[in-house]
C-alpha cells in the first residue's frame, strides 16, 4: 500500500517537475511604476499635488538566442484622463557578432538620456534635464529600422547604431501659432517621402568600461508635408554624450557622471503671425541647443548600512530656443537630490530644483520656478 502511494507520489512529482523544464521560447512581463508629491512656486504662485501613479508594463519575448521582441506600454493619469502610450514596440535579430537589426518603434540612440537613462528607476532625479521630453529638442523615439553593434578593440570598446525613420514634422503654426518652427518628434505618421537618417558612435576608451564618449547625428531633408510650403525645410541635429561610472576607494563609493549636449538646426522658413486679424510673415534663425551634466555619489563602501543606501545628486541643465521665435527662451536649471535605494530598482528621491527662464510660452520676462519633489520609483 505504502509502496503504491509512494509510486503514485513520485510519478506525480516527476510530472510536476517536467512542467518546469525551460521552454525554448521565453516570455517575460516586466516594467516600472512611479508616484510622488510635488510643490512648485512659480514667481510667487504656489501649487502642490500628489502625482498620479504611472504604470509602464514591458513585454519581452525571446524566441531564440537571436530573435526577440520588446514593447512598453505607458499608462498615466493626465488630469482626470487616462493617457496611454506605446513607448516602443520593436523586433530585433542578431545578424552576427557585430550587428543586430531592429525594426518597429524604438527609442532613438540620439545621445544617451532617452534611450538609456530616462526610466524613473534609472534617472537619479525626479525630472528630466531641460531640452528633453515635451517640447524638447532631442528626438526620443520613432518608427523605422536600425543596425547596431559593438566591437572589442582589445581593451577599449566601440559601439555604433545607424537608423532610418519616418522623421519629425515641423509645426507650421496653423494649429499652435506660438510653436511655429518647432520640430514635432512625437508625430509618428510620415508626412512626406523624405526619411530621417541618424546614428551614434560610442567609444569606451578604458579597458574597465568606466568611461564612454558618444557622438550622434540626425538629419532629414524635409519636415513639411509633401504639398506644403515647408516641404524643403530640412533639419540637422547633433549631440555629444559622456558617461563615467567608477568605484573610487578613497571616496568610499561610486561616482557617476553623465552629460549630454544637443544642438538642433532647422532650415529658415517663413511663418505667419496673426495680429489684429492681419497675417504678418516673420522668420528667424531656427537654432536651439541644450546641455546637462549630472554628478552623483553613492557611499557603498561606508561602514553604515543606512549610508550605503544613500545617494547624493546634483545636476545642471540649460536650454536655448531660437531668438525671434514665438517660443524664444533661455533657461537654466539646478537640481539637487538625495536618494534612498530600497533595492537596485526601487528608489525614493527627494529633490529641490530651481529654474530661471527668460521668455518662454507664457511670458516675456524672467520667471523663476522653485520646486520640491518626493518621488518613489520601482522597476519590477
Amino acid at each position: 500500500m505504502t509502496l503504491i502511494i509512494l509510486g503514485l507520489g513520485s510519478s506525480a512529482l516527476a510530472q510536476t517537475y517536467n512542467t518546469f523544464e525551460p521552454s525554448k521560447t521565453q516570455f517575460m512581463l516586466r516594467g516600472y511604476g512611479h508616484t510622488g508629491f510635488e510643490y512648485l512656486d512659480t514667481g510667487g504662485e504656489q501649487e502642490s499635488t500628489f502625482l498620479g501613479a504611472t504604470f509602464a508594463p514591458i513585454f519581452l519575448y525571446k524566441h531564440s538566442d537571436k530573435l526577440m521582441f520588446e514593447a512598453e506600454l505607458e499608462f498615466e493619469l493626465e488630469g482626470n484622463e487616462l493617457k496611454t502610450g506605446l513607448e516602443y514596440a520593436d523586433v530585433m535579430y542578431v545578424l552576427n557578432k557585430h550587428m543586430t537589426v531592429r525594426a518597429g518603434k524604438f527609442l532613438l540612440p540620439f545621445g544617451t538620456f532617452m534611450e538609456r537613462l530616462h526610466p524613473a528607476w534609472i534617472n537619479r532625479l525626479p525630472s528630466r534635464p531641460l531640452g528633453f521630453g515635451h517640447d524638447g529638442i532631442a528626438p526620443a523615439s520613432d518608427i523605422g529600422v536600425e543596425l547596431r553593434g559593438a566591437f572589442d578593440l582589445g581593451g577599449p570598446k566601440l559601439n555604433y547604431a545607424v537608423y532610418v525613420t519616418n522623421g519629425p514634422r515641423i509645426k507650421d503654426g496653423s494649429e499652435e501659432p506660438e510653436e511655429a518652427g518647432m520640430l514635432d518628434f512625437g508625430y509618428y505618421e510620415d508626412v512626406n517621402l523624405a526619411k530621417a537618417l541618424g546614428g551614434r558612435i560610442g567609444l569606451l576608451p578604458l579597458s574597465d568600461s568606466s568611461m564612454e564618449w558618444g557622438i550622434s547625428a540626425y538629419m532629414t531633408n524635409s519636415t513639411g508635408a509633401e504639398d506644403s510650403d515647408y516641404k524643403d525645410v530640412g533639419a540637422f541635429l547633433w549631440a555629444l554624450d559622456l558617461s563615467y561610472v567608477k568605484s573610487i576607494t578613497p571616496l568610499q563609493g561610486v561616482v557617476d557622471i553623465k552629460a549630454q549636449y544637443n544642438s538642433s538646426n532647422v532650415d529658415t522658413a517663413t511663418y505667419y503671425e496673426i495680429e489684429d486679424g492681419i497675417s504678418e510673415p516673420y522668420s528667424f534663425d531656427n537654432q536651439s541647443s541644450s546641455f546637462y551634466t549630472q554628478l552623483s555619489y553613492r557611499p557603498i563602501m561606508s561602514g553604515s548600512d543606512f549610508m550605503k543606501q544613500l545617494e547624493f545628486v546634483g545636476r545642471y541643465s540649460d536650454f536655448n530656443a531660437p531668438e525671434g521665435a514665438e517660443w524664444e527662451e533661455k533657461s537654466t536649471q539646478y537640481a539637487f537630490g538625495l536618494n534612498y535605494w530600497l533595492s537596485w530598482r526601487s528608489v525614493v528621491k527627494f529633490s529641490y530644483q530651481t529654474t530661471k527662464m527668460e521668455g518662454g510660452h507664457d511670458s516675456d520676462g524672467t520667471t523663476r520656478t522653485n520646486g520640491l519633489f518626493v518621488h518613489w520609483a520601482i522597476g519590477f
Partner: protein
Amino acid sequence: MKTTTNFKAAIILSVMASIMVACSSNKKPIATDTATEVAGSEVDFKIEKSGAQLWGEVCNRCHIAPSPADYNDTDWETISLHMRVRANLTEEEITKIESFLKSAN
C-alpha cells in the same frame, strides 16, 4: 542655410563611417599579434576578464547592477539578450556575464 546643413551632415556622417570602417577592418585583435611574437610572456594573460569582473564593470554603467540571485537562469537568458542589444555590449562581454549570472544565482 540648406547647403550648410547638408555639409555639416556630410562631415559628421563621413567621420562616423570612417571610424566604423577602421574598426571593422581591424579584425585581428592587437593581443594576438603580440602574443605570437612574445609567446609565453605576460602578454598572454592580457585582458582575460572573468564574467564576475565584467558584471561589476559593465552592469552598473546605466543603472545599479542586479545580483545574480535576482533572477533564474531562464530570465537571465532573456535579460542578457535584451541588454546586449539595448546597451550595445560586445558578444564576449554578454556571453561571459550571462554564464556568471547563471552560475551564481
